[in-house]
């Protein structure tokens, strides 16, 4: 029983402690310094900002590329 309660206590405390440690590490590592660059880090020259990357199969893709308004007017359904 004592072992069980030790595990329980360890789990609950360590759970929070790990989250706090990760948060402190992230802040020290500069993860919260440049939000703009962070949000743009998933785009690159191959898939730049402003370019959709998914359409229904068989749909004319060029109509989608470019501005959102063009995408909204949209190509005909295949």
């Amino acid at each position, binding site marked *: 029983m004592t072992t069980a309660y030790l595990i329980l206590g360890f789990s609950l405390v360590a759970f929070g402690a790990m989250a706090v440690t990760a948060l402190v590490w992230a802040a020290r590592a500069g993860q919260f310094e440049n939000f703009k660059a962070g949000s743009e880090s998933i785009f690159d020259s191959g898939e730049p*900002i402003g370019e959709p990357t998914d359409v*229904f199969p068989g749909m004319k893709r060029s109509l989608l590329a470019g501005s959102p308004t063009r995408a909204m007017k949209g190509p005909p359904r295949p």
Partner: protein
Amino acid sequence: MPPPTDAAERAYIDRSCRAPVLFFFGSALFWLLVGTFFALVTSIKLHDPEFMTRAPLPDVAKFQAGGSLNANPISMQDVGFLTFGRFRASHLNAVAYGWASSAAIGVGVWLMARLCRVPLRRPALVTTAGVLWNIGIAVGIAGILAGQSTSVEWLEFPPYAALIIGIAYAMIAVWAVDMFASRQCDHVYVTLWYVLAAFFWFPWLYATANILILLKPVQGSVQAIVNWWFGHNVLGLWFTPIGIGAAYYMIPKVIGRPIHSYYLSAIGFWSLALFYSWNGGHHLIGGPLPAWVITASIVASVMMVIPVVVTAVNHHMTMRGHFGMLRYSPTLRFIVFGAMSYTLVSLQGSSMAIRSLNKISHFTHYTIGHAHFGLYAFFTMVMFGCMYYIVPRLCGCEWRSAYLIRLHFWAAAYGIFFMIIALTVGGLVQGLMLADPAKDFVGEIVPMTRPYLVGRSLSGVLLSIGHVVFAYHFILMVLQLGRREGGPVYFNPVEAEVRP
């Protein structure tokens, strides 16, 4: 040698994930179909309790000839594995661990490789974990059907199956740490935080709960709190981070626009990480626990409004002006449906933790509606959306048919919508009636719920159609029967157009 261009690097990384991720997706879909079968039978049994275990009609001719009327008795020993208690637990475990978790691991593995910008490391470790994971689930479900369920909700798998699953998952966690440590990116994108955290949290939760309930059981009501600490954290610290993390990657990526406020996404993640694990106690409102434990849990549950609203506002503002794209992107359609459901189901969940509503909704179909709202309308839809994006990039061909994708989407969307309506309305009426001591349980309350339960079974048929269609479509992709026109870069619309 590093690949020459960003696009080539991405294609290289995607390809490195191919075998393990397709294996996880394939097995996820297999368990989805198995879980759907259990679900349909379980649902029908709720309004037709003898379904599949009905004794054959007595042989009248034999009776007239002087034989016994009860000539064909049905023995519970023969049909025990077909009864509600075992099927319901099998359904839950098949869809929660077999479908949802396998899909989550597949999506998480792919996202980690992409966001760490390294080709998949130790693919053999991931695939071995996948094989073990599937063995664990198969053994566990066989154990439940054989009557060896532990009867602890969300942990029904017998201990020997839980051990296999725990080892498999620990292997995934080790792999995730290895991937993260060898990442080639300076910035840790918000999705990577979510996925890494989920891969780290789940084995912790699973091991702790199994040790404290099955291996070295704590006594009495402490078991209940451990049970629901685990049960709710599986949703909040395993499925939710994978689902939300995937949405934070897929929505910007598909529409080609960065997240509206990266700052808000950071707040959303860290508030979830720091406060979510308090939530489980709200399952035990009215239960045999100190009142302060439950009150603390209610406060934490209501506090969850913060990360939820933050995420909802962020996703909405990112999508603003791009909603027209829902018509043209299968991935976006499923994921936005899922993200909107996440907002609604989370706010509903916070409200259900409040004592005055909980006293009506607890122990009614309302709760079941909430569970399906979360795991299907939110999580499963997000996973479908991710698979529509990931599978073509792994298989190198495009989905075969836009019609089948639309059929899948509308079957799933209408199916889950009707299921939630039926269970929510039916559950509310049921709860109000149960709270009224003048109402007769068998005579009034049970017949009242019947039409809602029939409606739920019908909505389940719609969902099943969607699942079969998607599984068929997936098999076509794995067999390389997808579309190939449009040049080699199927996954980059502009390049595909430009190239002759």
